[in-house]
């Protein structure tokens, strides 16, 4: 891990400004340190030589001025650093969001790499939509944490670490230059010991790294034990093991202590080397100048100057050492951000964007536009030998699927878990593209067709209303949640959609009705209520194609009945695809297709 990541400097313009300010402040601090030392030496030696307040008042006044100056520079360094940290965090955050969502963010210095948006890779991500799995990427939580608390670690890095790093370079050199002129032997002692510090620390670090890493793995395992036991407390209680665990917690924590202390005994060695070298060097210098002073080889003021400056040469190094670990968290967070950004770029390269030649796009728009403008029925959708294999998987999720979905047709897709039902919906939504074969969009009556991949995904999705198995509700009001696909809808329209979705009644009982904020991930509502909010979204969207993924799985009978009534209403006059495990839907649909192992099997 480098002390200063060049990518960080390149990416965030705030970092470049910050570096300049920091170096400037560092130079000022160095100058003030030297001046203060000289003045103090001058006053002490002057007083010893019999000078009084009248002779020394100028020097004493200057010390006061320097105190004010140092305070001002310290304040300025920290304030500027926190200011820059806030900007740098914002810049990194925006880049991260722009990359992950594929939506360009004005505040980010570079738009997402090249041409069309690199695409929401989280959707076609390595895991792929599995039956019964929730929406979103498994890394969503990790990314959210990284973009907030993770990046906060940069505060310390900017405000405490970088300025000390600059000082650790400037101050020793300046001190050395001044001391060399005053007393070359002291300068030699300092010049010899200073470089030893980083060398010894590197040696100790290098020697202990392998061992430390092994220990950290053990520590992680032991560290998780307490959490595991507390989480499992109800289970332990049921089996009458709750009391017995106390002794085990003590034993494991003690093991944890043994292992950790073993690591720390070595990890603290580098700090020991640092402290020893720096103080012994000062002691050597003090004794050496004391003796030379006694023999009259040095004057008192010079000796004092050297004594005051000697510890200053080591101070910034010690500070850097003390703040190293805390600050590296900031660097680690930044590195994680860069890792995410790089990963996206890689995937964008290996999966070339669909050909988007303007002519073809115009042609394909012609298929979709009329439906959007005039509210006609949906186009016909034809799967021609479609296969889909997710990146990093061996087995195809779908293989050789051929299927026609006629306008107004209602199709039930059944099959066991993992048979590819949800993947088929993902294809229809344009979340993923077939690895083989094509999905063709045909004008009713066979007057024209185009592959789905040629139609801009945004445009195509305007034809679709999707009710996922686990709809995601946002931490906004009920109204906003239902308006997701039609932000301009009036309150009356939203209410009408909620009525059709059998959601109006329970929404009315919420404290603020449609104005109720739903809380993080809609925790305020039950699964059945969430499903009906999602159905209201679909009603409001009023799209010619509806896709429903397990609309009643995991719902208790009361909720399931309400959802079923709403679904029946939603399917009227629309093309519909329902994915479900059971065949309980068969009376609502025109055709049932059974999927098994990614292939279309015998219809039930």
């Amino acid at each position, binding site marked *: 891990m480098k002390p200063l990541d060049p990518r960080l400097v390149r990416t965030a313009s705030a970092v470049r400004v910050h570096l300049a300010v920091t170096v400037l402040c560092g130079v000022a601090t160095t100058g003030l340190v030297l001046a203060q030392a000289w003045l103090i030496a001058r*006053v002490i030696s002057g*007083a010893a030589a019999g000078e*009084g307040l009248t002779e020394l008042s100028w020097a004493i006044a200057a010390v006061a001025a320097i*105190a004010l100056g*140092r*305070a001002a*520079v310290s304040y300025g*360094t920290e304030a500027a650093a926190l*200011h820059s*940290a806030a900007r740098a965090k*914002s810049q990194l955050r925006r880049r991260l*969001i722009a990359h*992950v*969502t594929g939506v360009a963010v004005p505040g980010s210095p570079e738009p997402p790499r090249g041409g069309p948006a690199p695409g*929401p890779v989280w959707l076609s991500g390595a895991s792929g939509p599995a*039956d*019964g799995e929730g*929406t*979103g990427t498994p890394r*969503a939580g990790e990314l959210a944490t990284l973009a907030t608390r993770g990046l906060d670690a940069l505060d310390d890095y900017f405000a405490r670490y970088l300025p000390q790093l600059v000082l650790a370079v400037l101050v020793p050199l300046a001190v050395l230059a001044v001391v060399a002129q005053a007393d070359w032997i002291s300068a030699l002692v300092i010049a010899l010991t200073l470089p030893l510090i980083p060398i010894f620390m590197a040696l100790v670090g290098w020697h202990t790294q392998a061992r430390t890493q092994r220990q950290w793995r053990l520590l992680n395992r032991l560290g998780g034990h307490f959490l595991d036991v507390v*989480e499992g407390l*109800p*289970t*332990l*209680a*049921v*089996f009458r*093991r709750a009391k017995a665990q106390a002794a085990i917690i*003590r034993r494991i924590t003690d093991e944890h202590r043994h292992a950790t202390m073993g690591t*720390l005994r070595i990890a603290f060695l580098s700090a*020991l080397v640092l402290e*020893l070298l720096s*103080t*012994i060097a*000062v*002691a*050597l210098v*003090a004794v050496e*100048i004391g*003796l030379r002073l*006694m023999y009259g080889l040095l004057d008192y003021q010079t000796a*004092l100057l050297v004594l005051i400056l000697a510890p200053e040469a080591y101070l910034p190094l010690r500070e850097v050492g003390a703040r190293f670990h805390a600050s590296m968290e900031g660097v680690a967070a930044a590195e994680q951000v860069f890792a995410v950004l790089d990963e996206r770029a890689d995937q964008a390269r290996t999966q070339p964007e669909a050909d988007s030649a303007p002519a073809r796009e115009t042609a394909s728009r012609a298929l979709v536009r009329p439906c959007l403008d005039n509210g006609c029925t949906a186009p016909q959708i034809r799967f021609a030998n479609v296969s889909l294999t997710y990146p990093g998987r061996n087995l195809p999720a779908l293989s050789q699927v051929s299927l026609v979905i006629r306008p107004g047709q209602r199709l039930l897709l059944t099959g066991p878990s993992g048979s590819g039902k949800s993947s088929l919906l993902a294809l229809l*939504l344009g979340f993923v593209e077939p690895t083989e074969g094509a999905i063709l969009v045909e004008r009713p009556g066979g007057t024209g067709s185009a592959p789905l991949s040629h139609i801009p995904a945004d445009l195509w*999705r305007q034809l679709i209303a999707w009710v*996922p198995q686990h709809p*995601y509700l*946002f*931490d906004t009001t009920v109204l906003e949640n239902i308006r*997701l696909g039609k932000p301009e809808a009036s309150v009356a329209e939203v209410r009408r959609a909620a009525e059709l979705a059998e959601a109006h009644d329970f929404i009315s009982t919420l404290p603020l009705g449609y104005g109720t904020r739903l809380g*993080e991930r809609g925790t305020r509502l039950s699964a059945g209520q969430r499903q009906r909010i999602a159905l209201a979204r679909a009603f409001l969207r009023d799209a010619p194609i509806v896709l429903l993924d397990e609309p009643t*799985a*995991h719902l*208790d*009978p009361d909720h399931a*009945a309400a959802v079923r009534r709403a679904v*029946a209403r939603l399917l009227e006059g629309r093309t519909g695809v329902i994915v479900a*495990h059971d065949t*309980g839907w068969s*009376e*609502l649909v025109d055709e049932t297709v059974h999927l098994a192992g990614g292939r279309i099997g015998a219809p039930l």
Partner: protein
Amino acid sequence: MNLPAPKPACRPLLRMIALARPRTTRFVLGVLLGALATGAGVGLLSVSAWLLATAATHPPITALGVAVVATRALGVTRGVARYLERLVTHDAAFRTLAEVRVRVYERLARSEPVRRFRSGDLVSRLVNDTDATQDLLVRGLTPPLSALAVGSAVVLLSTVLFVPGGLLLAAGLLLGGLAVPLFAAALGRTSGRHQAAARGELSSALVDTLYGAPDLVAYGAMEQAVRRVERADAELTRLARRDAAVLGLGTGASALVAGLTVWATLLLGVAAVAGGTLDAIAFAVVVLTALAAFEIVAPLPAVAAKLEAIRTAGARLFDVLDTEPEVKAAAAPEQSGLPDQAATLRVRDLRVRYGPDEPWALDGVDLDLAPGKRIAVLGPSGSGKSTLASVLFRFRDPDAGTVTLDGADITDYPVDEVRRLISGVPQDPHIFASTLRENLRLARPGADDAELWAALERARLADDIRATMPDGLDTEVGAHGARLSGGMRQRLALARALLAQPRILVLDEPTAHLDPDTRDAVLDDLLAASAGYATLLITHDLARLEEMDEIYVIVDGRVVQRGSHDELLAEKGWYRNAHGLGDPPRGGLRAVR
């Protein structure tokens, strides 16, 4: 824990110290070593100043001998003392951690706070808050106590040499070590409060955008969501930039106090030397001591900020620990009048609620379970079914009514006595991050492998394990059993319940979170495995209910229907409606079965 509370703000800290009952000897040793390390650093400069000032008078070399030795000794002392201090305090902190964890755990185990365990986040926060106690010792208490010890010594030395200088230094150290850190911590708190709302909004906008990504894209609303993140980010950044101007004040103030103390010492010192009341050698020592002394208080602003965070953790921790247990301590631990053989469970007029102002979760429930019979408790979510399981598992006491086993009231016996007879699969059974064997032996610590395999056979998990896990019972299942599928986790929980050999097997939503295929397979195996047990199955779905001897339908905490599958289907009511839920508005569907 009845500590006197000087002011509410400090109370969590004092209570945490009491909870830790710090290893006093090690802790004091750590404080002294810390003081020695810092003191050696300051002393090095004081002694060196004396050495130079004396040498400047060109005395005989013997006059400097002691100072030369002392200088070198102090040079070595600082590094060694610091190293030992860190080892000793960390060791003490880890020892304390073991104590604190055990105490917190025992408190939790005593109160069975099942209600609090609904959210995984809450548990991990509780665990982190517990672990914050060790930070209190290493990073919160040791540095200020060390600073106090060495600060007093340095002030004493200065006062002996030059009274005004000592007083100045005392004032400077108090300002720099107490006032400035408290001031800086207060600034940080204020800024944190300012930013809290903006932070919350940013976090919620980010979570919504990332987790809700598929929904957003499908409905063409991603751009809107990203704009929301942007707005939240802009607001937070604006506040953070504004606060930066204030937060730097602490550092500035530290530097100012140190600089002005040295300045005032010079001013008074020069006057005193000129006036003949101060020796020039002592003057040099006092000034350089003052210059070095601010190293003593340098770590304290960070400590103040840390203490603030630890205090918050403590407040949260005690908030959980102070909650009243939901089960009264058993009256008669020795008494064992509970039937050892198969027994009839009888629930009469059971009423439970979660607070005096809350609605009844169970509102007068009657239920009977005879030996060898199987009953199901069915109802929509929130109907009170799981509260019934909590009462049977003795996670909480009934507020009214009785639960008896062959006439013996279960609340009259120690909770573990009852759990010997009534056990099973609690809601969301926990799979521990250990081996299959350890997870199973939880239920019967002495069980040999043959018994474990037999239980796995009955839960129909044995073949899966033989086929896919070469390590057999030694297979590590990962945190929360992550290496097992959902169905395997439920079967493992079932095998564990069977090993416990209770008289009455309670299964609370054993098929929750499973897809319908797996659900049906697990239910079939579960019913086969529980043959012969008195079984109480709590469920919200209708699968396999025809296998049950009796079905209780609970809605809003009351039993609204009771009877066999066929009887209930024959009568008008909730059960029939639930099965006939296909009746769509246009009258397409009829009963499913």
